[in-house]
């Protein structure tokens, strides 16, 4: 059904809109990796999720040597705040220390997609203070899932970030 107020476009209007689309995409295209990041992030088995939004992503430390740098990332949603710190280990690997509040013994899953290989998942249990560690992980696209506690509820999911 065509809306009454929807005046028809003539050839020039259509051409202007098409040129506008082409020109804007040429000037400000989405980043090449955006589709991959989104596809990775939404390839989940459970859709009963709560999204923890990226609040802050900072690099601290002297920076003189790679091993002295720490990256701290904070995610936040109504039910939970998640913080992680990522440090470089030898041989290009990483250590990820995290905690969430309010604390609970919940299963924490790290999904990781390294270039050219299928995504892998690691599971750890957080302690009663909500702390968890992933040691010796590779680089790539990463996403954290804090699974629901015994009493049910949604799994808290972060967007994907590049490690």
């Amino acid at each position, binding site marked *: 059904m065509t*809306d009454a*107020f*929807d*005046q028809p*476009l003539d*050839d*020039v*209007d*259509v*051409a*202007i*809109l*098409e*040129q*506008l*689309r*082409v*020109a*804007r*995409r*040429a*000037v*400000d*295209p*989405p*980043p090449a990796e*955006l*589709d991959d*990041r*989104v*596809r990775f*992030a*939404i*390839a*989940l088995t459970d*859709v*009963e*999720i*709560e*999204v923890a*939004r*990226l*609040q802050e992503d900072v690099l601290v430390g002297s920076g003189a040597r790679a091993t002295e740098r720490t990256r701290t990332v904070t995610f936040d949603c109504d039910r939970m705040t998640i913080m992680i710190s990522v440090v470089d280990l030898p041989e290009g690997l990483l250590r990820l220390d995290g905690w969430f509040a309010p604390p609970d013994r919940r299963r924490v899953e790290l999904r990781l997609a390294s270039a050219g290989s299928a995504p892998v998942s690691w599971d750890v249990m957080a302690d009663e203070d909500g702390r968890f560690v992933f040691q010796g992980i590779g680089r790539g696209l990463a996403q954290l899932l804090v699974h629901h506690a015994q009493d049910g509820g*949604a799994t808290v*999911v972060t*967007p*994907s970030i590049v490690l």
Partner: protein
Amino acid sequence: MSFVAGDAAMSAETVSTDRAARLARCLERAREGELSTLDEAVRELNPLLWQVARAQGLPTEEASDVVQTAWLELLRHLRTIRSPQALTAWLVTTTRREAWRVRARSRAQAHEVVDSLESRADDGPGLDELLLTEERNRVLLRHFHRLSEQCRELLGIVAEVDRPDYSVVAEALGMPRGSIGPTRGRCLAKLREMLLADPQWSPP
């Protein structure tokens, strides 16, 4: 890139029908639990969602996060979304809301950052840096950025979406349904008038 008006009109028509049908299939299968079918919808809709996030003045990293968050939010709302039009409208609305949220947070953190973001958005991101091969595109964008913010946002979205669903999408902009057609007409007429008055631009 070049095009001829007649071809553009015809291909836009064909593309829009194909796209609506493809999105309808993706959506149906995703609602049945086959989430990987959303991959195609991601490819189809990301350029639009990107423009929506950037139109709110966000830098590239924040705009990427906002688009991603909107898709993640979609997952638990999938079963309430019945048509490709509704899918597009829902994602545009959510992307825009998330972008506001991020912008408000940046504003609270640092006024000067937001100021520079806003002036960049007004100038049109990357306009100076990128070498546009077609002078006509450059002329068009220059006039486009002289339009009001409302006109830029509406025309930017209309240019990206299928004709049948842009009234739905314009509703996502929070405009009264009845004012969308006239506003689109007014904004497009203004742009067209400026272009036709510019000797550097020739109608295709």
